[in-house]
Structures are given as structure tokens and as C-alpha cells.
């Protein structure tokens, strides 16, 4: 494929779109609304990554198995995070309590509030 030129949109135009999305992703969180931050910061990150993968990496005109390979790695990561997250994000469960983590949270919050009052 690399030996043959392939039709593509203007790369500079794609860069311009990415710049616009960058501006939105920086300005959006400044509004201070949590949902807007999630959409503009993380939603736009996913859109930007897709644009780079499609128009710069040309994953859409690669052999299909490349997209399956990359996609399956992402799925594996999501599975790993999903499987491990209850133990990491929570500090207690039905039969256990992560005392060290709970105390670190308390210490960190107290230290942070002290820093704010100074």
C-alpha cells in the first residue's frame, strides 16, 4: 500500500480540526460543570485519537486484522480495569477493609485542607 499514493483529505485541514478540538477540550472544563468536563476533556480525547488513527495512521485502509489487533488490545485493557477496579477503587468489601488506603485518604484530605487555609 505504501508504494501507491492513496486518496486522502487535506492533512492540514485535519490538523486544523484537531486544533479546534484541543481548544474546546481546554476551555470546556473551565466552565466547571462535571458533565461538560467529562465530555469535553475525555470525550474529545477519544474523538481526537480516532481522527489521528483514521486520517494519519490510515487504519481505515490497512488490512482489517490490524484494526482487530489494536481493538482487541483495547478490549483486554478495559477487561483488566473492569475486573480489578472494585478492589482498587473501593477500600472495603464484604469481608475486607483496606485500612492503609482509607487512612491515606483521611491524611491526604486533612493535609490538603490545611494547605488551602494557608
Amino acid at each position, binding site marked *: *500500500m*505504501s*508504494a*501507491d*499514493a*492513496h486518496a*486522502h483529505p487535506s*492533512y*492540514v485541514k*485535519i*490538523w486544523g480540526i*484537531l*486544533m479546534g478540538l*484541543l481548544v474546546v*477540550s*481546554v476551555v470546556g*472544563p473551565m466552565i466547571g460543570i462535571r458533565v461538560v*468536563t467529562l465530555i469535553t*476533556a*475525555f470525550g474529545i*480525547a477519544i474523538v*481526537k*485519537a480516532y481522527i*489521528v*488513527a483514521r*486520517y*494519519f*495512521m490510515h487504519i481505515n485502509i*490497512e*488490512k482489517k*486484522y*490490524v484494526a482487530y*489487533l*489494536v481493538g482487541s*488490545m*483495547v478490549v*483486554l*485493557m*478495559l477487561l*483488566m*480495569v473492569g475486573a*480489578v*477496579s472494585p478492589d*482498587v*477503587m*473501593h*477500600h472495603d468489601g464484604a469481608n475486607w477493609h483496606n485500612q492503609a*488506603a482509607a487512612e*491515606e*485518604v483521611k*491524611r*491526604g*484530605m486533612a*493535609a*490538603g485542607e490545611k*494547605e*488551602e487555609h494557608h
Partner: protein
Amino acid sequence: MSFPKPIATLREATGMPTGRLAVWWVIASEIVIFGGILGSYIMHRLGHPEWAHQSIHTNTWIGAFNTFVLLTSSLCAVLAHAEAEKKNGPGAAKYLMYTTLGGLTFLIVKSIEWTNEIKHGYTITSNTFWSFYYTAAGLHGLHVLAGMIIMLIVAADAKKGKELQRVENIGIYWHFVDVVWIFLFPLLYIAK
């Protein structure tokens, strides 16, 4: 007895040049590496709300500038690929040099940023947030550096009109490094 080219360069066992397939394999494994670090960070961050008092000290504007630099360098990398497709080796080499310059700018800005943060006492051991911050961004920075070195080697050959297929390959790697930063930026600099 010597071979003019590596055997892999002359072979297409899977319907695509072996070199390009190899780059996609590398990217697949890098997704696991960076996905692991970023996934772990997200989980820990959600379980440690007190990290907000630490993450507030990262500089969003520096992060945004570095995002601009990397996106622009990605543009240069794909323009290098476009030139290589037209068999214009010197043109491809020129754009690869611009891409490398973007990488250098990124690393210089990061060093200034980190020097400032370390001076203020925010080191890799001061808090688990900063441990994640320096590890994730540091590993990414090492990938930027490695990409720059390979890019310079490819550019040296491309300037002489040699091995132009490698321009696309290093470009794919560079775009992936950019994609990793696209996710690092909101996680470390925006979601405070």
C-alpha cells in the same frame, strides 16, 4: 556473503510489508503498556479523592502547549509520508526533521516543567499521584526520545532516496506516541 536488505523487507507473508506489520505489533503491545498505566491511574484516582490537592499543581497551559506541539509534529510526520509516497526522499526527510524538532520542543518544555515542579517539592516519591504522574509522563517521554532517534536514522536514508517505506513505519509509531499523549493530557492536566 552479504544481503542488500534484511529478509523481512523483501517479504510480505500477511498481505502487508513485514516492517509495517511489525510496527503495528509494537503498537499493540504499547497499548497494553500505556493502557495498563493509565487504567491503573484512573482506578487509583477515583479511590483517592485527596489527590485533587496534588493534581491541582500541574500546569494545564503547559500541557495544552505540549499537546499542540505533538499534534503539529504528527502533521509533519504524515506530510513526510505523503512525500515518500511521491518518491520524494529529500522532501520526506525535511518533514521528518520538523517532526523531530517537535519532539525536541516537547522534551524541552517537559524538562522545564518538571524542574519547576521538583523545585516546589513535587517529586516522584512525594505522593502516589506524583509517582503516577512522573512514571506515566516519563515513560511517554522515553518513547518520544526513542522515536526521535529512529526518525533521524530514517531521515538520513530518506534524504538519499533510500528505504522510503520506513518513513510511513516510523510515522505510524509517532502517531501512536501522540495518541498516548492525547489521553495523558486530560488525565494529568485537566481532570483535577
